[in-house]
């Protein structure tokens, strides 16, 4: 198990290195440069700024400088905000995004599981249709459509929720709901399919043949077995959520990392783009690892296979 974990860790670092490098070079392909955007600077000032941020060095040197900083845990300084450190900005902005994301996941998970389970157990009932409707809505209507719609109807027209900014918990409800829709939709659809699949398995028939009540069969045998594959969609779901956070924070003007990231792209604030990308990547890679570990905990077949290594 230790060897296995170590191998996974090494893999993770290789993946992170590749993502970092690729992003760094891709970023250089963005049209324009961070400084040329601002017309107010004199050529001397430009040169001075360029030197301050090492932008006058050849690309390989810039890359080497960045990577060596990274190894020391230094993400560099932002081109805006009077050169504040990227780490500082991320630390300031991250909690808001985490809060939104977590809230969305919890709501999405609870609603999605509930709808998925009920619609599998009561096939073709009103719950089933409701879940199907939500699933279509959540999967096919993108966040950048859903968010303004929610703002307009629930915010402006009905006046239930504030439509922007982040001043109280109440402000976080609407954006979280928008984010949660996708999560709930994906989880509901997935749970329903898995449950129906498991309900048709021989071991479920055997459990019924033991004289267990319907509830006991579902709780002890169906749920656990349908939840195992759920672990495998955690990752794509998390990915969807991160992109969702970028959009939703921008639409709702929420001072989270997502909004900052989108803005830093327009501003060509390279250190922020890099820092955020690296953070997102670490997040993905970590959820991959977590997924493997979770899988092992829920599914004894894998646990044992891992132990043998």
């Amino acid at each position, binding site marked *: 198990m230790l060897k296995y974990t170590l191998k996974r860790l090494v893999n993770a670092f290789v993946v992170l290195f590749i993502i970092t490098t690729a992003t760094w070079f891709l970023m250089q392909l963005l049209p324009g440069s961070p400084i040329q955007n601002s017309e107010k600077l004199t050529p001397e000032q430009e040169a001075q700024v360029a030197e301050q941020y090492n932008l006058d060095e050849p690309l390989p040197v810039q890359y080497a400088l960045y990577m060596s900083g990274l190894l020391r845990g230094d993400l560099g300084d932002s081109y805006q905000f009077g050169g504040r450190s990227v780490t500082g900005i991320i630390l300031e902005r991250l909690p808001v995004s985490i809060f939104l994301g977590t809230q969305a996941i919890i709501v999405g998970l609870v609603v999605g599981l509930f709808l998925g389970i009920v619609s599998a157990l009561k096939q073709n009932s009103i719950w089933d249709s409701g879940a199907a409707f939500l699933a279509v809505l959540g999967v096919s209507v993108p966040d950048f459509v859903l968010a303004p719609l929610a703002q307009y109807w629930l915010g402006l027209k009905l006046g239930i929720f504030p439509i922007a900014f982040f001043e109280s918990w109440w402000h976080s409800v609407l954006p979280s709901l928008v984010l949660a829709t996708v999560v709930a939709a994906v989880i509901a659809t997935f749970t329903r399919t898995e449950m129906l699949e498991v309900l048709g398995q021989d071991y479920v028939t055997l459990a019924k043949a*033991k*004289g267990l009540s319907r509830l006991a069969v579902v709780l002890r045998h169906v749920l656990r*077995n349908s939840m195992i594959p759920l672990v495998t969609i955690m990752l794509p779901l998390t990915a969807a959520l991160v992109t969702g956070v970028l959009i939703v924070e921008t639409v709702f003007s929420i001072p989270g990392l997502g909004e900052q990231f989108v803005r830093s792209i327009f501003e060509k604030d390279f250190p922020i783009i890099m820092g955020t990308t690296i953070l997102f990547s670490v997040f993905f890679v970590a959820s991959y690892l977590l997924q493997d570990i979770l899988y092992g905990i829920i599914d004894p077949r894998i646990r044992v296979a891992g132990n043998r290594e």
Partner: protein
Amino acid sequence: MATVNGEAILSVDDLRISFSTYAGEVQAVRGATFDLRRGETLAIVGESGSGKSVAARSIMRLNPESNTIVRGGEIIFEGEDLLKLSEKRMLDIRGPKIAMVFQDPMTSLDPTMRVGRQIIESLKQHLGMSGRQAAERAAELLELVGIPHAEARLKQYPHQFSGGMRQRVVIAIALACDPQVLIADEPTTALDVTIQAQILELLRELQERLGMSIVLITHDLGVVASTAHRIAVMYGGKIIETGTVREIFYTPQMPYTWGLLASIPLPTADRSQDLIPIPGTPPDATDPPKGCPFAARCPYAMRICEDEVPGYTTFSDEHRAACWLHHQMAPNVERPARITGAK
């Protein structure tokens, strides 16, 4: 093996079960009548698709609720029609009264639950045992079905068992609450030949020790010779011939049974010559024939066979068959030699 003459513990009378599907109504069982006597093993034999499993699951009411239609008939157990019992009452039948063993031991056990818990679950539910009592009983059960190191084995997961061992676990689960009737639906089909023999031997031994009545479902007549007391041959959702093992093997009365017997491999003979599969395919359950279900494949079929369902002709106390060849006006047909010569 001696015939067990005794009262019926389970009587299935004119059972008709259909499923509604997109392709139409699948008439899986179309009037099956048989009974199971106390302490006997009744083998239900027939080709794939003849309705054996559906009939068996009907007894336990385990066919999918969503699309099963009970078209008629009754299943009498302890004076009550199982088809009419409430779902709640059925919970007390399944397990302690009637238990079932399924075809594929690789998929019959919950892969995420320790084997011990899967046995204990039943004990707690029906016998109200405490955790410790149940664990002890579970270990006893594993030993009973021939699994050594029971204590340790209880803590393992199904994937740590071989196919044969898993089927023993499934049998242990079935036996947990001392059922009066055990329905084994092709319990050895998915296993190697040597393991098959072991499992059949185990069932026979258990029956002697515990005195259960067993319904043994199989598509392989070879399996039943040494295991069953009586045989019911099923085809196209009907029981077309039934009798003692002796009668079915030595004096079969219906061409379908002849065909089944001819397709048993003989260990002594040259196999390539002896194995004669029945030509043709079983009838379509969505559009079953109106006469004898076997007419389309029967080399001796007469006009009437296609038009009318034959009634039963009785040959002995136990032996009867549904075939027009036994009508007084039918021509005399000799059984093929391969059958008469069969051991």
